[in-house]
């Protein structure tokens, strides 16, 4: 089966009109799209993804996922992307067991319409994840605290509430970026077919320790 063939489409009403949430957008889908103005660079915050070409690159990755929130005809108002960890990341040592929910963002102009929940939920609603430890890392320096009007700890709680809805739970790690600030977090969702031994390997890896034989 083609990786992108089981993508889903959901329509969501917002105060700014209907938004289409589309999962697993395939390579070639992004050419005529543009980022809505509430995504981008602001005085104290920049979007993780700053141009549409980045989506094309993610969709080309092996089992890369791009889920978009689209305001017809051509505006991207939110995105959720995922991929296997890069080879230079600690988590890549467990191969394709690990899958990173790498970024999720909604335009400042479209927040409060549950687009993040819809994008995340529809992306994770895939049997693919039952063999994976899906993980997210939240770094407070990426968060739009100013736009959200929240403190870092309030924003952290908001992130935890969002991911918890889909079976994620917080775990601890000494990975330097996560450990740098107390607000930072790592959350995981362990697929139903992930073996106990693999979970143990991941636990030790979180602390940079070889598991006992």
């Amino acid at each position, binding site marked *: 089966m083609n990786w992108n063939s089981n993508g889903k489409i959901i329509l969501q009403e917002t105060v700014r009109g209907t938004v289409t949430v589309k999962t697993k957008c395939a390579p070639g889908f992004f050419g005529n799209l543009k980022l809505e103005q509430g995504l981008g660079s602001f005085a*104290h*915050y920049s979007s993780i993804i700053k141009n549409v070409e980045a989506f094309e690159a993610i969709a080309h990755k092996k089992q890369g996922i791009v889920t978009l929130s689209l305001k017809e005809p051509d505006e991207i108002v939110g995105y959720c992307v995922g991929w296997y960890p890069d080879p230079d990341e600690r988590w890549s040592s467990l191969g394709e067991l690990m899958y990173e929910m790498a970024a999720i963002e909604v335009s400042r102009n479209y927040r409060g319409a549950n687009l993040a929940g819809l994008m995340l939920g529809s992306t994770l609603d895939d049997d693919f994840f039952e063999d994976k430890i899906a993980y997210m890392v939240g770094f*407070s*320096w990426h968060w739009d*605290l*100013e736009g959200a009007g929240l*403190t*870092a*700890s*309030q924003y*952290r*709680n908001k992130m*935890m509430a969002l991911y*918890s809805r889909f079976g994620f*739970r*917080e*775990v*601890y790690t000494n990975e330097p970026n996560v450990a740098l600030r*107390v*607000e930072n*977090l790592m959350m995981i969702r362990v697929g139903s077919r992930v073996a106990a031994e693999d979970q143990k390997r991941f*636990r*030790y890896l*979180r*602390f940079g*320790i*070889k*598991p*006992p034989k």
Partner: protein
Amino acid sequence: MLQDYPKAVVTCDGTSLLLRPAQVSDETALTEFFAKIPEPEQWFLREKLTDPEQLHKWLLKIDQRFILPVIAVREDNGSIVANLRLYRPAAESLRHIAHLRVMVLPDYRHLKVGSWMILDSMKLAMDLGIEQLIAEFIDGLEQAAIQAALKLDFVRQAVLPNYVKDRQGKYRDLIIMVRNLQREWSDF
């Protein structure tokens, strides 16, 4: 708030620990834990939880609105190696703060167990909407804990000179350390 417990931590020697809230059923393991605390340190405990009877009463009266006790349990044998308590005042005017007290068995103090416990308490406090954590340490006795707190961005807020007296009658300073948990965008 507590749904993510137990939380696993692996120490640098490969010991797997589970951090979780203490329960009444932990009484036996807690009794053993407090019995292993060196006698000179027992002297400074504000609650005599080394006394099994007092420990029993204390466990029964735990109200998580005001006290959150978290323990670190060895996964292989179930023994408790560290204990941290978050105390939240009942007064509305002080609900935004919490005091923490942490105790780690000597054999585990070089394994950063205390650091993980304090970090866990900070995250738990943030989940509860607490704005400031306050820790008190006895100068000259709890240097490892002070260092752990400094690494986690606690700052020395005050020193109460000659505040506590040890068993030999010698006065010691009490160091009060504070950690602000509510950073805004302008703090970054």
